[in-house]
């Protein structure tokens, strides 16, 4: 089963401490909400960075995604704060 690629931007990257990583979440991770819940359990840096749900935006395969949108092995999932434009 292919891994899931996670990307972090802006202060989410600084707080988590890496720009990207590959993970293999358990089968109960099926959508954005369950992915975020699982990630919060990965350690205090993740729990702190992902604590405020409104401050965390998600894109799945380079498309903005909401809590109920599906994620699957092989996906590119990006986490970032609200965009602040050019």
């Amino acid at each position, binding site marked *: 089963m292919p891994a899931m690629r996670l990307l972090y*931007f802006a202060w989410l990257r600084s707080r988590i401490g890496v720009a990207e990583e590959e993970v293999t979440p358990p089968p109960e991770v099926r959508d954005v909400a369950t992915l975020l819940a699982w990630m919060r359990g990965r350690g205090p840096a993740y729990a702190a960075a992902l604590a405020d749900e409104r401050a965390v935006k998600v894109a799945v395969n380079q498309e903005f995604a909401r809590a109920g949108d599906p994620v699957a092995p092989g996906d590119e999932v990006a986490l*970032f704060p*609200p*965009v*602040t*434009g*050019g």
Partner: protein
Amino acid sequence: MTVRVQAEDFDMGAEMAALVAGRHDVGGLVSFLGTVRDLAGEMPVTAMTLEHYPGMTEKMLARIEAEALARWPIAASLIIHRHGRLLPGDNIVLVAVASAHRQAAFEACQFLVDWLKTKAPFWKREETPGGDHWVEAREADDEAADRWAACAP
């Protein structure tokens, strides 16, 4: 119909000339040039770093440009957005729309700029005498972009 996301600077005059070179059906060319300010509110800003999501940015810019093309009669358009560390006065973004109709060119250009400022995956880090910080999203900008959703051209 061109989208470029780049660290390098651009030459506005050359870009404008290239956009309409050899085209005689264009009556009006509206452009927006965004540059780095040296103030954010009351705070002096000494530099700014624009981070983006490579791949997604280009994809979203091409999509919004296609949406503008579908909504307004556009003869030619151009979006150039820089990323990386920029100093006050530096160019950030150039959006240009050429049309036979000036009203269409103004509306489409403003639509693209509002969108870029609120929906494109860019994050801004400011350097100030008091330290560095990531810029917070602004509600006023969201409203500027959202009004296009309710307003057909």
